[in-house]
């Protein structure tokens, strides 16, 4: 499978990245080269193989549903780029 500039633009939008025309060209070329290398995997018959998303046999690791103190508000806001009235301020959304 090869990808063209339109696909690169679509993926950039999904990833919330802004690419220059030059970057789009470079990424198209490099991604194609990398994905071409991935085609190796198609040589393998994996029809009866289960996927491994995670190597440990862990499932549903929960803690008890007990209320614990949260991080103090000032600490949570301490790295805020823009903070107003104890809230994170952002440009308009709608």
């Amino acid at each position, binding site marked *: 499978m090869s990808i063209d500039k339109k696909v690169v633009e679509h993926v950039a939008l999904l990833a*919330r990245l802004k690419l220059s025309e030059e970057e789009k060209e470079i990424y198209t070329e*490099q991604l194609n080269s990398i994905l071409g290398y991935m085609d190796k995997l198609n040589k393998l018959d994996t029809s009866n193989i289960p996927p491994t998303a995670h190597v440990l046999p862990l499932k549903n690791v929960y803690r008890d549903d007990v209320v614990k103190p949260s991080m103090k508000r000032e600490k949570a806001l301490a790295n*805020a780029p823009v903070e107003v009235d104890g809230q994170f301020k952002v*440009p308009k959304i709608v």
Partner: protein
Amino acid sequence: MKLHEFTAHELHHKLVNKEVSATELTRSVLERIRSVEENIKAYVSLTSEQALAKAAEVDQKIAAGEKILPLAGIPAAIKDNMCTQGVRTTCSSKMLENFVPPYDATVIEKLNAHDMVMVGKLNMDEFAMGSSTENSRFFPTRNPWNTDTVPGGSSGGAVAAVAADEAVYALGSDTGGSIRQPAAFCGVVGLKPTYGYVSRYGLIAFASSLDQIGPVTKDVRDNAIIMNAIAGHDSKDSTSANVKVPDFTSFLTGDIKGMKIGIPKEYFAEGMQPNVKAAIENAIKTFTDLGAVCEEMSLPHTEYALPAYYIIAPAEASSNLARYDGVRYGYRDVQAEDVVDMFKGTRSEGFGTEVKRRIMLGTYVLSSGYYDAYYLKALKVRTLIKQDFDRAFEKYDVLISPISPTVAFRFGEKAGDPLSMYLSDVCTIPINLAGIPAMSIPCGFSDGLPIGLQIMAKAFAEGEIYKAAYAFEQATDYHRRKPNL
């Protein structure tokens, strides 16, 4: 020998015997940093004042006759992707250039309980993506053995600092080889523990099913001591394994008679530098002389590990890095007029080229229409790779191989071709996919540049690695050599 040249276990004895104070030791390391750091650039941040304050505390404990733990008062440094409360943690990225974590990673809490003296945070490839530390957004780190060459990556700062005696030990992280490959390039001991052995809480995530924190040290004993301190179940990390932690130093017996060692032939591909091949063959001979039984064997799906990894890791990264949106912390594009523009501007300006490339790759392979062909396929290949290792460890105690087909390369040599850079991880990546532990130890030199040997074991069998590594180390002197700085 100067104080900063010793190992942690040697220094512990000196502290306990009151031959030196923690303050003198810390001063020696800080002086060493002042003297060589201009040439090495291992550190992103130095915490000299806090380090000296902590050292003074430890000295008071010793003076009061209190018993101190093995790592107390020992100057250490931490790769800059582990959260240290109140101390800038950047991942060597513009995105987190001014981020000051409000909490400590679990490994930091554990080392603090051991009275660690933290001297600073170490340079890395941005967000741990890279094999040379050239992807650091700030500056590259240089290999102390030859400053025209890279230290490896992504834990380049960690290994360079330990090799140059700018820290007695360090913590690195390994997702596709990021402790082991740089450890090999800089002639130090680096362990990637079994996935789940060391808590990832507070480790800034790259690929959640692959990342592990591990010790970078001057010798095998130090490595075992630090593993004792940092391993163990953590309820704050839901991927943390609930297994008992042995005393890893108990495996340092030097006796490996009868140990069954497998040598996977697929790890000796063409492209291996002749000196590297010779060093590994020499190492095999050393193991045989020590009484181990070495035998060639096969891990048939090895060649598929790299393409599988470069689908899985970027996929997980694209998800983990989605949080960097400029809203709550980190860099923000403050010129943006609406929120989507803010996300785009923040991420495009905050992330470097390699990070963006991997996010693009990951987003693509997970996107609708491509998920089955790439990501699901890669996860099935991962099963095959894991099964290769499961089968191997039914027969062998450990497996050994080269860490890298080459020694440290020159700056810029691979930076222009991402695929070529990715290929330098061909020996380390399968280990992360399978979740098993592996260590790099020095096993030779080529024109003054270190060569590393990889020792692998099955999950939670770090003891076997420590046994083999210690026996090898004690039969050789590579760990005693120091770069000329």
